[in-house]
């Protein structure tokens, strides 16, 4: 429905939450939002996903933590964060003043760690949802990421689901052989939505010194370089689950976001683009609006999942 003669309707629903538009910020690329306040109108965003939080503060990896690679960047921040207590004390008061839904990205070192944190957040009224990062190492299982094994992924999500009635988004790792298998297990465990992809593990070497360019040796690749992989995974997953999918990976422009929406993502997240152009989210929202207007499409949901694939193939 056109709320105004010219303005297309950009609202989308993710679980029980209605978003003004399908453009969210990706965790770890937008700080706690206050950093961007001098530059953009945070109230215009579809949702804000804050930096990944854990029960206790984490100091992160030694530097160098980032390195640029062709059309992308590697990061090994090491999940540095201030912990849930300080977040509630110092960051939440500002976030409360924004009309945009706030989604908290969480991670833990054990299944109990995830569940306890989800339980804590469940009681915080100002937080609209939880995004679970299952791409981090499971210490008790030798450091293999929770999100790599379908059963472990299931166990984490189920434990979190037991502790919260809030919107529950699960963020999938692309570093797996079969993302569809994991997606289905996570859906079965009670997730309301899936977001994909997290960064792709990579590395870079300085040939002069013969040392890795990151102190951590490996890091997560993000930016335009990963967009085709992210899009392919969204395409595979949307056809195999019933819950909404949020597309993430290398989205810089409205055109990039539209690729994901047409492929079937209900919403998108903008990550690395925030570093290059702090106004990227605003430009993308504006660009999607223009795209719909130009084609007289009344609402954004009319283009979601409208990819035309020739049946002869």
């Amino acid at each position, binding site marked *: 429905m056109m709320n105004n003669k010219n303005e297309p309707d950009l609202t989308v629903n993710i679980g029980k939450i209605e978003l003004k538009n399908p453009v969210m910020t990706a965790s770890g690329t937008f700080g706690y939002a206050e950093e961007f306040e001098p530059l953009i109108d945070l109230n215009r965003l579809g949702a804000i996903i804050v930096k990944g939080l854990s029960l206790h503060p984490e100091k*992160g990896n030694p530097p160098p933590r980032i390195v*640029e690679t062709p059309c992308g960047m590697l990061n090994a*921040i090491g999940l540095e964060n201030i912990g849930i207590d300080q977040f509630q004390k110092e960051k939440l008061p500002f976030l409360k003043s924004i009309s945009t839904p706030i989604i908290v990205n969480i991670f833990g070192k054990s299944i109990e760690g995830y569940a306890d944190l989800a339980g804590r957040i469940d009681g915080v009224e100002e937080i609209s949802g939880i995004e679970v990062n299952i791409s981090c190492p499971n210490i008790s299982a030798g450091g293999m990421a929770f999100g790599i094994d379908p059963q472990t992924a299931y166990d984490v999500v189920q434990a979190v689901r037991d502790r919260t009635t809030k919107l529950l988004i699960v963020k999938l790792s692309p570093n797996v052989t079969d993302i569809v298998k994991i997606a289905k297990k996570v859906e079965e465990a009670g997730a309301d939505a899936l977001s994909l992809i997290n960064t792709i593990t990579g590395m870079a070497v300085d040939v002069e010194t013969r040392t890795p360019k990151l102190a951590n040796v490996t890091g997560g690749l993000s930016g335009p370089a990963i967009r085709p992989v992210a899009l392919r995974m969204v395409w595979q997953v949307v056809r195999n689950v019933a819950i909404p999918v949020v597309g993430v990976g290398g989205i810089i422009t409205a055109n990039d976001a539209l690729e994901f929406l047409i492929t079937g993502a209900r919403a998108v997240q903008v990550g690395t683009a925030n570093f290059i152009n702090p106004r990227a989210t605003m430009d993308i929202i504006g660009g999607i609006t223009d795209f719909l207007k130009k084609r007289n499409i009344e609402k954004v949901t009319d283009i979601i999942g409208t990819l035309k694939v020739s049946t002869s193939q």
Partner: protein
Amino acid sequence: MILENAKVLWNKKLGPSYYKVGLQCWNSHLDVVPGQFVMIRIPGQMDPLLRRPFSIHQTLIDNGVVKGLEVLYQVVGKGTARLSKVKRNDLVDILGPLGKGFMIPRSARMVFVVAGGIGIAPLFYLISNLEKTRHDMHRPVVFLGGRSKRDILCLEELSKKGLNIHVTTDDGTYGKMGLVTDLLEKRLEKQLPDMICACGPSAMLKKVAVLSEKYNTRCQISLETTMACGMGACLGCAVKIGNGKEKYAHACVDGPVFDLDRFRL
């Protein structure tokens, strides 16, 4: 903080690998503290992808209002090579001013400025700024070091200010042959400043840190790290701080200028 496409006023070559680019800004609320930096990119390009950090070398003032800024840079890779190609009237996307600059206490009367190579970029602005705003202070003593004669920057402009300048080069092609920190130490033996301000390669900064401790002098250094956002959002610019306990500060918001008391090199 501004985020805008600034117009290139000039992009002058100063030697084999050094340039100065003048940028005209439209926004007039440009309060700059010496030591602060801007994040720069060429609009519409995806490679290089990220912005690059550069210290503010000078503000361009028109009728008492800051109308732009100048960056002094060295070509070391893709981003700086691309920047060296911009021409008058081209647009350059800038974000800034960012970070914490030099804080010279009210009580300070004497400052030693130590620059290695391109490290003079923010320090030149500090010197000009002190000259303008701190008539109560003595003129700073300047130590300039570089690999070779061509790496000694801003010498003419600094000489015009009538400053006491000590120059060293690694190869002896200009000034004294040797390290800039050797001359600094000689001077410290005779006279102790209220503050040392330094910027340059990490080996030089380490020596300056040792000297400031040995002579019990306060010291502020400007650090270089890789940065993605420049505004506290990515946590990529971590630098180790504190004595003993491993703790990280973020150079883009907590720095790039750090007081050495807080810092361990």
